[in-house]
């Protein structure tokens, strides 16, 4: 593809921006989703409230959120922070439920055994429950990652620069090389994030391999 050959530097720059805009919200979103998910699990009454609440955030179209952000945050209209915050909201909305369900899926008897051994409160959360819930949470994180990469490309419509620019310009000037490169770059980025999360999960859950978890 000659277009890529001539423009790979631009593509790389845009890819870095894209990674930043899609990736940072993943991290921040996860950090924010952990306490919320834990609260939803801990207090049965809170579960429907938190889950429905975050679920509602999820239904807001991304373009609308990008445009509303400056009004809500008082940021400048083109500030990429608008996109970052919007993407974090989506990530949190997606992950809160996953974290809650992941924590809920930890069998009661395991929890009780841990308590009996002296693990209480935060120690039990970080020492027992989260590690066991990790695969479920990681799976949710993977979905969020792929999702984020796709949504961020829409931000080109409001002037925030990333791989979506290739899509918009490729369409406007009918340059197939550019359009296809943009699509492919997004797919590769999504797959890259997916692999990184998978690898991270594998590294953090060695007991799965030990148990011969693969059927």
């Amino acid at each position, binding site marked *: 593809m000659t277009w890529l050959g001539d423009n790979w530097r631009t593509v790389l720059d845009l890819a870095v921006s894209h990674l930043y805009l899609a990736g940072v919200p993943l991290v921040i979103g996860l950090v924010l989703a952990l306490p919320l998910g834990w609260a939803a699990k801990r207090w049965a009454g809170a579960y429907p409230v938190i889950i429905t609440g975050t679920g509602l955030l999820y239904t807001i179209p991304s373009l609308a959120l990008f445009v509303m952000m400056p009004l809500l945050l008082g940021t400048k209209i083109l500030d990429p922070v608008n996109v970052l915050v919007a993407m974090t909201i989506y990530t949190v909305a997606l992950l809160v439920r996953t974290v809650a369900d992941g924590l809920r899926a930890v069998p009661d008897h395991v929890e009780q055994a841990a308590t009996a051994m002296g693990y209480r409160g935060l120690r039990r959360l970080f020492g027992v429950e989260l590690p066991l819930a990790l695969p479920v949470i990681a799976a949710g994180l993977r979905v969020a990652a792929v999702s984020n990469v796709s949504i961020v490309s829409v931000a080109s419509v409001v002037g925030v620069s990333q791989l979506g620019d290739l899509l918009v310009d490729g369409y406007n000037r009918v340059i197939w090389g550019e359009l296809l490169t943009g699509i492919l770059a997004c797919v590769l980025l999504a797959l890259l994030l997916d692999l990184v999360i998978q690898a991270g999960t594998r590294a953090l859950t060695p007991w799965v391999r030990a148990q011969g*978890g693969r059927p």
Partner: protein
Amino acid sequence: MIPSLISWLTDPASWSGEDGIPTRLLEHLGYTLLTVVLAAVVAIPLGLWVGHTGRARWLVSLTNSVRAVPTLGLLFAVSLLLGPRISGELAFLVPSIVVLVILAIPPILAGTYAGIEAVSPAVRDAARGVGMTGWQVVRSVEVPNGMPLLLSGIRSAVLQVVATATIAALVGLGGLGRYLIDGIALGDYPRAAGGALLVAVLAVVLDGVLALVQRRVVSPGLTAGARSGRQGRGGSRGGPAGLAGGGRRGGVSGSGKDSADEMVEGERFVGETRAPL
């Protein structure tokens, strides 16, 4: 901003004409139904086949990687490709529907496959032991047992389509996305916000309707089993009984193979596939 949003919503002019709220709502609903039906027609039989025969699992992984394709890019590409080949009004509808269907297939396929796959082998064995043919097993055992996850897949597909159809307004599609796109282009933020609100409301309503359908259609035996399943099973994941297939997986953690397996980890997040666009 809120007052101007409310005034846009309550303005009778917003409710009349071809750009009125009822028209756009119906258009949007129509696109969603059309898309989900078309996607289900493709994905459900495929999912049943893959789940029942256990063959071609790579298909599920493949379709899951389709989610990584940016919607915007796909819309542009398909519009450029199909535009010259279709005449009249359809030229604005077909490319968008094609893209929406492509993107709705993964969640439905994943849900169907996960639901069928999660049926406990013991149950399947029993069915064959009783003398059921393959087709009967699918119809009378696998589908009913796999219903929760299948319906989850459909619910998430519906949510996704409702949200993604808004972006298709960029290439000429109607529906609620028009308020969003036109509002932004005109700097008419109350309109854009109104559009966003309507999309959210529609999504919630449709999800509620499907939840009711789920309650009616899913056999009560499955939901009852979920409650007891959470307590007792050593090393199983708990949660809806559709996941009873935990026996095959061993341990709380998933085997981490492909994302389809991860999909089995919860109807809860078969329920969350892509975020809305």
